[in-house]
């Protein structure tokens, strides 16, 4: 019925969302990790997000899809208050993480961002060594008491990001000598090092080739055992492959939010169907 998702595709992770074999989907609903209520976001007078409410569950991958400029990245960035940096940005409504309002007065935004890590569209390693990139978050937050603990956590993070084998012999070389895909996995390792609960990913594979993209996708699948992952993508196959839940954004509004298989095979909204079948966007 839909040319984009009609043929059953299998990937190396063994994940095939639509046949419902992913165990996560067959379990009872998990705990709500992020609870967003009537969220609106403004750049100056321009309203970029309009009255968005949704709940993101723990230890699942939630994908945000939608055409460029639909507000999906903006929404992602409200979850760790990354938009605070932008002058003239303003927010209405509530974002609760583990029940605590992220925008309440007195919230320590540094602590919030430690809990809600982020990986960006373009890999942005610091111009330092591979080791120092991963150690950065540990150092500034004072999370490693000794040198050996620091080294241990750097190794652990690189292993979690499936990068250790490739870099263990050149930890003290510049991170900028790595390939694009490796740099992005380094940025994931860097985010994992400070042990967040939630990882936000803003189109993490959009600048990568197919092989590097596949590795990132496998990684996302592995990481959801331990983390809650929210990923923005405008690659619909990617959303179908790796996510458990999918939210479709359009013109700053949340059109539909449901299990990924439902969004891609039997959406409730006409607009969603038009988008996932490639009629626009």
């Amino acid at each position, binding site marked *: 019925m839909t040319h984009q998702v009609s043929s059953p595709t299998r990937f190396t992770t063994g994940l095939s969302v639509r046949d419902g074999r992913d165990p996560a989907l067959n379990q009872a609903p998990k705990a709500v990790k992020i609870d967003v209520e009537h969220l609106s976001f403004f750049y100056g007078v321009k309203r970029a997000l309009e009255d968005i409410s949704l709940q993101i569950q723990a230890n699942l991958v939630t994908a945000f899809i939608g055409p460029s400029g639909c507000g999906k990245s903006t929404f992602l960035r409200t979850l*760790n208050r990354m938009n605070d940096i932008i002058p003239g940005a303003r927010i209405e409504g509530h974002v609760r993480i583990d029940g605590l309002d992220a925008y309440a007065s007195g919230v320590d935004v540094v602590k919030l961002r430690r809990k809600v890590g982020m990986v960006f569209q373009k890999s942005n390693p*610091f111009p*330092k060594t591979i080791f120092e990139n991963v150690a950065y978050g540990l150092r500034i937050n004072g999370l490693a008491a000794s040198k050996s603990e620091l080294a241990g956590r750097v190794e652990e993070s690189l292993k979690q990001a499936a990068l250790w084998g490739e870099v263990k012999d050149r930890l003290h070389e510049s991170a900028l*000598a790595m390939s694009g895909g490796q740099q992005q996995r380094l940025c994931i390792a860097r985010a994992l090092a400070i042990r967040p609960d939630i990882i936000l990913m803003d189109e993490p594979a959009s600048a990568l080739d197919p092989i590097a993209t596949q590795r990132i996708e496998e990684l996302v699948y592995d990481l959801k055992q331990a983390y809650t992952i929210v990923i923005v993508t405008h690659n619909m196959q990617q959303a179908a492959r790796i996510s458990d839940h999918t939210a479709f954004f359009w013109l700053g509004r949340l059109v539909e939010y449901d299990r990924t298989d439902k969004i891609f095979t039997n959406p409730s909204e006409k607009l969603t169907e038009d988008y996932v079948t490639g009629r626009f966007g």
Partner: protein
Amino acid sequence: MRDLPFRIIVGAFGCVLALLVLAIGVELTRQSWLSIQKFGFHFWTTDTWDPVAGQFGALPFIWGTLYSSLLALAIAAPVALGIAIFVSELCPAWLQTPLVFLTELLAAIPSIVYGLWGIFVLVPAIRALEIWMPEPLRAIPLLSGPPLGVGMLAAGVILAVMIVPFTSAVAREVLQTVPAAQREGAYALGATRFEAIRAALFYARTGIIGSIMLGFGRALGETMAVTMVIGNNPQVSASLFAPQYTMAAVVANEFTEASDELYLHALVEIGLVLFVITLVVNAGSRLLIWGLGRSGRTRPSRVADVEASAA
């Protein structure tokens, strides 16, 4: 090769630059030949400057130039960096344009005006400081000497004031070229504002060092304002309060009264020494920047994704 003529013309302009530097060097050498012949390398290391006896050594002037410039750098670098960081990272948007305009205005003030300000405001203030200085402190070589007001400290401060606008403007532009992704990357890892700024400074470190070195280059050659406040006394002294002399100042002051050939040639040789030192400092800072750049930023990417996927 249809663009050959174009390449020749542009190449010729490029060569003019190299020729110009060479011509200046050759001409300075030619015009100072008598002095070079007579004093040789001792010219660099002798601290006697006695036109009457025909004894010329450049050491006090080299010392004075380097001392005053380094002093200016020590004062100006933190201030300029602070201004650059404030303007590019912290100040509210409405204040940014006026502040940038103000720094540019400061850079446009002629040095003679700074010199006048030095004589009428800075020198009396330093004299008051020197008079206030308790006796035990005067025993320190750095603070010894009679309270004259004019001297090394006045020169250093006025040079610092003069290079701050320039250095801060360059440093600000360098900071503004740091990609937002670098700061965001730091913020996303739980960095405070201060830590995110440090990350940006680290990213821009070669450019920041470059801006400071450019300021140093300017301080080396600055003539007028320094001449007016440094005291113009050729001596090698560690004291901040001692009147001293710089290379640029001695050439400016004594060129018109150089009564004989040797005196004139000695002055031109001072110019040659200043030329050489400026070249060395600039080349040195270039090499430093390149060296830093190699270790941090521009390393060729050897490892392809293919290799990664094969692993």
